[in-house]
């Protein structure tokens, strides 16, 4: 088939080799390449994610429609600013001694794959964001930054299959790792829970601070099921996130956390 057309028999194996080379390239270089190319179209993404005013009727009520559209846009702005203020206040009241930078960011895109849970937000290196910054919404953990460009970042949500969050249960002090499972209600798997632990439904789960990526003490979720399966090495525990990951519109990115003395 290939040979008979134009003699470009080398095309298929060449493309397969190129894809293989891309798959084997180091992840930081690949992420830099991916973000560099994808960031060329960020302004268009931002435009597509922005709210649209209703189209006006150019006849008799044209002026009224124009004013209504302006009002709708201003209401959207007010809502966005109130939401950011509420989120900032909630975080500050939870962590009064934590000296952090908080960068509000709007969501402008999502992962194209149905099996991944990542977001693209409109805050990047120029805003002080760096890789591995924690991302929250009203003091509840949402994810972390995994790649960034000058004006945008990719955030991996906590229910993404590749997400790993070191956590601790407030009541029993059991430590473990939360991993995403793609379950419908964004349930997370609490790994390495001791079979003899006294975990039960309703227990609050916070970040433990181990690993240095997520600041300690950020609320992640509540346990919804904890049971011992016959033959399993660890207890099977499921956690539902506090943040509503299905309806995210804007988030807060934590930059440079350090504990203030006094």
């Amino acid at each position, binding site marked *: 088939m290939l040979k008979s057309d134009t003699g470009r028999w080398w*095309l298929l194996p060449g*493309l397969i080799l190129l*894809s293989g080379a891309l798959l084997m390239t180091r992840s930081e270089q690949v992420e830099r390449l991916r973000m560099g190319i*994808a960031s060329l179209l960020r302004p268009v993404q931002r435009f597509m994610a922005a709210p649209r005013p209703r189209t006006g009727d150019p006849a008799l009520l044209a002026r009224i429609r124009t004013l209504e559209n302006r009002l709708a846009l201003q209401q959207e702005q007010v809502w966005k600013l109130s939401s950011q203020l509420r989120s900032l206040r909630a975080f500050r009241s939870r962590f009064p001694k934590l000296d952090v930078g908080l960068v509000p960011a709007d969501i402008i895109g999502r992962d194209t794959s149905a099996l*991944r849970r990542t977001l693209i937000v409109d805050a990047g290196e120029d805003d002080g964001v760096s890789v591995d910054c924690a991302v929250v919404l009203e003091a509840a953990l949402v994810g972390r930054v995994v790649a960034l460009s000058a004006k945008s970042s990719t955030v*991996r949500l906590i229910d993404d299959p590749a997400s790993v969050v070191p956590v601790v249960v407030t009541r029993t002090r059991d430590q473990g790792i939360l991993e995403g499972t*793609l*379950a419908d209600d964004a349930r997370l798997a609490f790994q390495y829970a001791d079979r003899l632990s006294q975990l039960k439904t309703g227990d609050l789960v916070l970040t433990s601070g181990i690993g240095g990526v997520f600041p300690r003490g950020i609320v992640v979720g509540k346990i919804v099921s904890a049971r011992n399966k016959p033959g399993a090495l660890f207890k099977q525990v499921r956690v539902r996130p506090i943040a509503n990951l299905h309806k995210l519109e804007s988030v807060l990115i934590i930059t440079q956390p350090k504990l203030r003395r006094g």
Partner: protein
Amino acid sequence: MRWPLIIFWGVVLALVQSSAVQHVSVERVAPDMLLLLCLYVALYARRADVFAGAWFVGLMHDLYSQNPLGLQSLVYMLLALGVCLIRTEIFRAHMLTRMVLCALACVVVGSIDVGIAWAAHPSLSLRAAGSTMALAMAYTTLVCPVVFALFDVSLWIAGRRAEAALA
């Protein structure tokens, strides 16, 4: 179908897939528009352009995803190879043929993606991943007639009839 159209639709659909189409998503699941473009390229592009076109569409998919770069390019090329082998034997313009082909392509690509995701992330719930992918693929098959009609119109506007590539 020539390169300017492939590049145009590849870029537009990558942007739509990552931004606008989320507004019509169901349970955080949206149709895979780039898969439809890959299928259309495999059906109607010149034979010399099919593999490179499918590779480009897969690359656009990978650019706006956190999957390994190059993964979807490989998968789409395999799909294009399969479709290219049978395209002269089927009635490509019939809507039923297109939908059946789309459904089969969705099953193949979905199975590969779920298998790779499960191998890479053992904590992944296979049932949840499978049902998510099944919903995405059903949604994709449902919008297939509309999207293909859009491609047909663009092909006509570009001055070429869809069946002119059959040779």
